[in-house]
């Protein structure tokens, strides 16, 4: 290394939360140490409190109308833009995934590529899911009957603890692709890829508040979110058995939609189950007029 580089002061990155399109510190002012897979200190991440969770829900609720109301085509374009931005910062994510998960550089690169491909894959689904999950229903009567899938609302995502980037993308992208807004509780010990993803989202036309990312103790942040009356659904992907049970009990109070944790191979084809998990079916009956003995009146 040349002398001039050694003389530079090191510039550490301050990781921050992502709430309502802004990058605030935790309201509590707390941080915690994040180590790499070998136990070496990497950075300090904000240790969110329940108030940060509350603020994130307010931001997500505020963003919901606009995001759910946007055309599926526009959402697809925006998600594709996220993939473009990820591609541009590929090296950074490879390094962060490598540190977080202790992978070799080649394996980390493969994980990041898979994650980018997944964004693109879900981006393509935005304007196609309605045809798969909805459609015309044959009914016994003079009605034209249509079902269309609608987003559930504000979804809390407890991100997978092991797969800090591919796993995160695999749970986040399907939630926002269908028009929900998300409050993400990043992997407790490996939050850095998630916090960096926030920077990508902020620069790729995703409206502020559509995705909110919190780092900290999973149990501490997820509990108030599970009990929150203004959260419509919770994905427990990253909760262990004990925590998942507690959160499900708390979520029962306002009949939240709950997606239970299950063993998932994040690199495998995800299918559409995560897209449909946070959709509500709206069915419309429309009279077709009287059908006389001669058949249709039109």
């Amino acid at each position: 290394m040349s002398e001039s580089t050694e003389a530079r002061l090191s510039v550490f990155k301050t990781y921050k939360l992502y709430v309502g399109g802004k990058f605030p510190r935790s309201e509590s002012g707390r941080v915690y140490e994040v180590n790499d897979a070998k136990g070496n200190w990497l950075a300090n991440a904000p240790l969110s409190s329940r108030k940060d969770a509350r603020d994130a829900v307010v931001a997500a609720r505020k963003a919901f109308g606009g995001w759910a109301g946007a055309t599926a085509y526009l959402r697809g374009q925006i998600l594709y833009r996220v993939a473009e931005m990820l591609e541009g910062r590929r090296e950074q994510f490879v390094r962060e995934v490598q540190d977080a998960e202790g992978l070799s550089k080649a394996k980390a690169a493969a994980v990041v590529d898979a994650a980018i491909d997944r964004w693109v894959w879900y981006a393509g689904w935005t304007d196609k899911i309605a045809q798969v999950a909805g459609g015309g229903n044959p009914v016994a009567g003079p009605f034209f009957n249509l079902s269309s899938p609608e987003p559930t609302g504000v979804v809390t995502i407890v991100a997978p603890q092991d797969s800090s980037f591919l796993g995160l993308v695999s749970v986040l992208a399907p939630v926002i692709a269908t028009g929900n807004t998300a409050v993400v509780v990043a992997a407790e010990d490996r939050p850095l890829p998630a916090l960096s993803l926030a920077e990508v989202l902020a620069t790729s036309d995703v409206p502020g508040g559509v995705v909110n990312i919190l780092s900290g103790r999973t149990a501490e942040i997820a509990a108030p979110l599970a009990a929150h009356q203004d959260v419509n659904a919770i994905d427990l992907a990253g909760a262990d058995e004990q925590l998942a049970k507690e959160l499900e009990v708390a979520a029962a109070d306002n009949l939240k939609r709950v997606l239970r944790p299950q063993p998932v191979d994040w690199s495998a084809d995800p299918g559409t189950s995560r897209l449909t998990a946070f959709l509500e079916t709206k069915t419309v009956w429309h009279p077709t007029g009287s059908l006389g003995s001669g058949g249709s009146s039109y």
Partner: protein
Amino acid sequence: MPPVPKSDKPAKGEKKARAKAGEQTERAGKAPAAREATASFADVTSSDATLRRFLHGLPGVDTVGLEARAAALGTRSIKTTAKAYAIDLAISMIDLTTLEGADTAGKVRALGAKAVNPDPTDRTTPKTAAVCVYPDMVATAKEAVAGSGVKVASVATAFPAGRAALGVKLADTKDAVAAGADEIDMVIDRGAFLAGHYMKVYEEIRAVKEACGDARLKVIFETGELSTYDNIRRASWIGMIAGADFIKTSTGKVGVNATPANTLLMLEAVRDFRAQTGVQVGVKPAGGIRSTKDAIKFLVLVNETAGPDWLDNHWFRFGASSLLNDLLMQRQKLATGRYSGPDYVTVD
């Protein structure tokens, strides 16, 4: 020449006098005391020149100091039982307001129902102090809150601009009182005030006060249009001398509404006025107060500036509509431990 009011904290010796004054100003005996106070300023209000001299002789406001004090008082941390007390107090101080061109009788009735029973899921929630409507809606509002103890306040005097002839303003006021309004919110003539015609402003408040009869009069200064803190202090004194029962910051119709600093200034004015005359005047910040946190900051200002005597909905009000929902959600959070959402309070 009456003594010049002090802008700083009252001296120790005044405490006893203030306590005595407090007795004098018990609710029933309020009206004669106010008239006496007005009378004691007779030499000040004898001519435009004397009134101007008095108002311009008021101590100048230390802008930096005022804002710093308001900001410092806003940093108090109010938690648990104190917070629960503050939330209930704030709910009981709300003038639940709807002042839209699109107001319908149905909307006013809905508002009345909400004022009487803000949280239908929790009957221990206190009532709000009043509903505040346009004069033509007073009768509807009165009917909606009948028998509940919730008062009906009506804006009057060509609200919000106040740009009408005195006769029209008085007719507006009398109309609202005749319809059963318990309180009248009038606007001062800001044009006259800013042009320096203080006497005109004073006479107008006097005339409206006459027209109010038994209804309590709130005088709105529209602080956002008065430009300077000195002007707010002068307007406060004109209002109090003229016999206002309440001084109120704003209409809620302009860009700058109630701020902690201008409310603090008005609280200092009512404190000094009582120290000097023994007459207690209420304060009502209105507009722009939307969150529980803001409301609690104002309550801290009241307690630390005017004192606990004003921590009552007879002497302090919030002019607000969306604030109530936030207070109710916070109240539900304290009761259940779960964060509540806008689906669990009524939409208005």
